[in-house]
């Protein structure tokens, strides 16, 4: 999931032929942009209008001054990534239009409303028109007509809106997007539809079809370092407590749940995500990353392999203990189950390590150990 900033989303809309106000980023404002302007904080969060992130300005100089102010500090606690300045529209009416993937229906859905400009969650259900699109059919005229009729549009406005629906649907498919949302979609006093805002979410898994598409590095230092090791790290709480390393998203969630149910503290979890195939050295790197960033009292390694060899994990643990003098055996709880279990245990024997075969007892031991360390 790649969430775009407003100005990036608008570039995508514009490339699909959808009208957007003339504008630019404040540091590189087009020379021609002047007059009645809007200055908009570019943030990865909703509700920026209420937080003071959208302000009007008369003329270029004022707009740039306001932009500097907005750029200078976080907006309601959220970092301001950039500031975008665009022409203010002469608004007649505000609509809502989006195309998104409905995961439960398993198909794209178009949503339109004549009540744009407000939080769409606040729009009464009866004022929303929804139309699913069977991907084997694509967007058919009857689907578009139903949306247009649902908004009570007629004449030229109906034609213009119908064209927009097609463009938005095409943008969703052509850009492998999860969401294209225009709110408000402004009908200007001179009768044209213009996208006054844009929220676009792209599918990272489709990056191979879109050269240059890459998720922005997000998350905490630990989470970014995990990503660099091709594993998925999630920081849960401040440092200390248990940090746990698992294979598989399911086992990761279950381990987090179990330790918390036992009233243990979890600083973070790592899902190896197939990193075992990069060998024991990578496993040692993951342990080092966890130790450095989360400073846990105890590291739990909870691995259940059906086919991959637990020997790689065992070797990785030994390498990490060699490399990291403060990774002492009393800080490790190992739950190793599955393929080459006996071999892995034999490799780890004689190092003073706690190895437990069952999930529940291993979690109990990890929590017990953190309590001992905290008490000491």
């Amino acid at each position, binding site marked *: 999931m790649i969430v775009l900033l407003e100005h990036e989303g608008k570039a995508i809309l514009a490339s699909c032929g959808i009208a957007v106000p003339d504008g630019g980023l404040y540091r590189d404002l087009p020379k021609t942009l002047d007059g009645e302007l809007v200055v908009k904080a570019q943030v990865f969060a909703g509700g920026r209008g209420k937080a003071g992130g959208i302000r009007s300005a008369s003329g270029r100089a004022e707009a740039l001054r306001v932009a500097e102010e907005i750029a200078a500090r976080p907006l309601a606690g959220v970092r301001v990534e950039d500031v975008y300045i665009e022409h203010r529209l002469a608004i007649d009416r505000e609509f809502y239009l989006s195309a998104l993937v409905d995961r439960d229906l*398993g198909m794209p859905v178009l949503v339109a409303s004549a009540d744009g400009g407000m939080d769409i969650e606040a729009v009464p259900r009866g004022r929303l028109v929804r139309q699913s699109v069977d991907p084997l059919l694509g967007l058919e005229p009857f689907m578009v007509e139903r949306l247009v009729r649902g908004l009570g549009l007629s004449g030229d406005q109906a034609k213009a809106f119908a064209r927009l629906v097609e463009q938005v649907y095409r943008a969703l498919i052509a850009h492998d997007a999860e969401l294209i949302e225009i709110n408000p979609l402004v009908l200007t006093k001179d009768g044209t539809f213009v996208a006054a805002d844009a929220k676009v979410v792209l599918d990272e898994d489709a990056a191979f079809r879109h050269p240059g598409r890459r998720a922005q590095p997000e998350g905490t230092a630990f989470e970014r370092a995990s990503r660099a090791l091709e594993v998925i790290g999630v920081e849960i709480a401040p440092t200390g407590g248990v940090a746990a390393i698992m294979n598989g998203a399911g086992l990761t969630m279950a381990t987090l749940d179990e330790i918390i149910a036992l009233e243990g503290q979890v600083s973070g979890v790592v899902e190896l995500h197939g990193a075992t195939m990069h060998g024991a050295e990578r496993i040692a790197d993951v342990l080092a990353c966890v130790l450095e960033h989360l400073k846990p009292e105890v590291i739990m390694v909870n691995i259940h392999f059906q086919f991959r060899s637990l020997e790689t994990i065992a070797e990785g643990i030994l390498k990490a203990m060699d490399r990291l003098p403060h990774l002492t055996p009393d800080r490790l709880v190992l739950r190793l189950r599955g393929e080459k279990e006996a071999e892995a245990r034999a490799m780890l024997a004689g190092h003073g390590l706690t190895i437990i075969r069952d999930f529940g007892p291993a979690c109990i031991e990890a929590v017990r150990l953190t309590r001992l360390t905290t008490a000491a």
Partner: protein
Amino acid sequence: MYRGSETDPPDDRCLRTTPLAIIVDDTSRILIQGITGPTGRSYAERMVQDGTPLVGGVAPGRQGQSIAGVPVFDSVEDAVAATGADAALSAVRSALALGAALEALSAGIRTLVVYTENVPLHDAIRMRAYARACGARLLGPNSAGVISPGKANLADLNGSNLRSGRIGIVSKSGTLTYEVIDDLQTRGYGASSIVCLGGDPVIGTTYADVLPLFEADNQTDLVVLIGEPGGRLEYEAISAISRMKKPVVAYIAAQNAPPEKRMGHAGAIYDSGDTSAAAKLAAFRAAGCEAVGRVTEVVTAVERALQRAAA
């Protein structure tokens, strides 16, 4: 056109003493798409070891080769013509997953497991729609597969560790399934069939599709449903359960998962209602199911449900 061969299992469906399992069983005729890749090859070797009825593999440009003793074909169409295959497991890379799925479905494959991870969302949407249009069963993308122990193994599960029994399992997650099976086996319970739906947001087969199969399956006494936060498939499952006589035990994982960053307001329109793990757990309980939020509680919940059913 496939006319059958001497090595085919005898067509004894009306005479056989062991009943058929749901989705796949020992009369299935299975292909692996991407059989020459590392994942496909390792699946092939495992299936042959497990006695799973693997009849061939597909890898464009590799026709005439043989992997784990089964022939490789250039296309699914050729493979189906030569072997009579009706099921396939796809282990191609994500960029090729949609094409491979459409090819398999076009060639008449009735049960398709897409093991491939990181399939683009819109590709998942198209393969799901085409599978439904063909009346075929698609598991995945990102599915750990389906296994009926002792009969057929199209799953990322080690068949040699599995005991067959009378509990059905339907799950989105592979690794949670391993844990639940392990605990059940420790207490003496085996599985009739294990169905992994896949961990992606858009998947071909849902809980509500699988539950009626278990209800009709005379080898299953009870179903364990393993769910997660996000989406409404677990709620659809509750409606399906209301039409079942057999007990269903729900385990909803990720009670403590950090909330996913909301993608936008429009997402919320469709995530209508509360799709958190806690809300799902409460909904299963309100519907009268044994439902738990810890993997270590599943077996005792199963035992409670079995006692209740016997009473």
